[in-house]
């Protein structure tokens, strides 16, 4: 039995003060983004292409169009934003800097509001990390910025037969340390850019390159509250190299990274509006 006051589990309701806070977050985000030359895009709620990119199709809320083709509710905005800009708007616009303020939906009834940014054809992650930081600064949120590089776990798991990406996903430090490799042990303990200098001379060349990218991102950002996590690995839809998470306590406010679409490098991030709103209303 469903009561009159019920709303589906995982769906979102904002009213009064909480709706005002949400509007403020979105308004500050759009103000900052317009000032940096970004333009807004609002993509359809229904999509033909989500299942091509979302590895776990069970996450999609699926239905059918009038010709019985599979469609789903948007579960990820980047997939559709990038595809629509490249495939549908390519003839109409050369613009590369886009943002969206819209929710995503996952099965069965989860709803998440997001502010997202895509800088198409851009390689430098600092160009968007700075924006994410500025938006959160304007909201007077001072979280921790975690900088990681998805290539490092991949390279290390290719180097050692004993290690798999699962060991990185579960942070299996007992296994890392049991290999008795000095540079790997140092990477387990590594937390700041200065420690990169200490390990750089003993790591293999391929890892050196990726560590230096992390260091460079940190120095470009001049972020006072940051942490390096070179062995961090999470299964991700598209971020394949430098990657950041903006966290506080157990919450993730934003995450972003570099990704490749048809050989074109782009960077982007998403701010999780619901999480930010909850922090601001506490």
């Amino acid at each position, binding site marked *: 039995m469903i009561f009159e006051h019920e709303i589906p589990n995982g769906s979102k309701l904002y009213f009064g003060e909480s709706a005002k806070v949400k509007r403020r977050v979105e308004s500050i985000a759009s103000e900052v983004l317009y000032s940096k030359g970004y333009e807004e895009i609002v993509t359809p709620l229904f999509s033909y292409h989500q299942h091509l990119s979302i590895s776990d199709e069970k996450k999609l809320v699926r239905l059918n169009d009038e010709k019985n083709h599979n469609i789903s509710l948007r579960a990820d905005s980047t997939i559709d934003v990038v595809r629509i800009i490249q495939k549908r708007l390519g003839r109409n616009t050369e613009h590369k800097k886009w943002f969206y303020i819209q929710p995503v939906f996952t099965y069965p009834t989860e709803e998440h509001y997001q502010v997202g940014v895509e800088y198409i054809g851009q390689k430098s992650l600092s160009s968007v990390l700075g924006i994410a930081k500025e938006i959160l600064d304007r909201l007077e949120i001072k979280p921790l910025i975690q900088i990681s590089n998805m290539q490092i776990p991949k390279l290390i798991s290719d180097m050692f037969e004993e290690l798999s990406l699962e060991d990185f996903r579960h942070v299996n430090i*007992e296994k890392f340390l049991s290999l008795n490799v000095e540079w790997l042990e140092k990477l387990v*303990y590594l*937390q700041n850019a200065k420690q990169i200098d200490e390990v750089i001379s003993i790591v293999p060349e391929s890892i050196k390159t990726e560590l230096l990218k992390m260091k460079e991102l940190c120095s470009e950002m001049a972020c006072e509250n940051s942490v390096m996590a070179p062995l961090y690995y999470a299964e991700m839809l598209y971020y394949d190299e430098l990657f950041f998470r903006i*966290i506080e306590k*157990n919450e993730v406010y934003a995450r972003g990274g570099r990704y490749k679409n048809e050989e074109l490098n782009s960077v982007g991030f998403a701010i999780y509006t619901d999480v930010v709103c909850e922090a601001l209303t506490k």
Partner: protein
Amino acid sequence: MLTVALPKGRIAQETLEIFEKIFGESFVFNDRKLILETPKFRFLLVRNQDVATYVFHQAADIGVVGLDTLEEQGLDVIRLLDLKKGVCRVAIGMRKGEKLDLSKPELKVATKMVNITKRYFEERAVSVDIIKLYGSIELAPLVGLADMIVDIVETGTTMKQNGLEVVEEMMTSSTYLIANKNSFIAKKDEVLDIYKKISDVIKSDA
């Protein structure tokens, strides 16, 4: 400052003894208090099944909990270190003399550990009807509620006293030091420092 979730009972006692060895001071919960504050740590006394939940939600940064409970709950926490204590087995028990026959069309299994049981039989493509119980699991085969049970076995005495015996061991469990994923990133120094110290004690005890 790290917050440490400990399961009430013997494991909490053993873990606090490790901390006493490391820091050379006494760590004792007073009366029936559930929080013990010290300059470097805040210890929480929680139910065994709740340890991983406290750590997952970061009400505690680290915790100590059995591998069987971790596997059953499947929460995304970091398994830092096998403390090699509280060793036990998760096993299938049947009435004495009965044999495990996985080719039977429908098996009834009584257990507290529904997820571990489900996964075990799924991996073997065996269809089972799982009956969730909260205690006195050994009773189920005796009164015809189930064909077998899946339960924790330490010495096997409880099963034996109830006319049951272990027919298959599913996994070995021991207590693990676990950590919250964000705490591991944000407080890496502190988490790895205590990891190293506990690891040294475990090695010297072995």
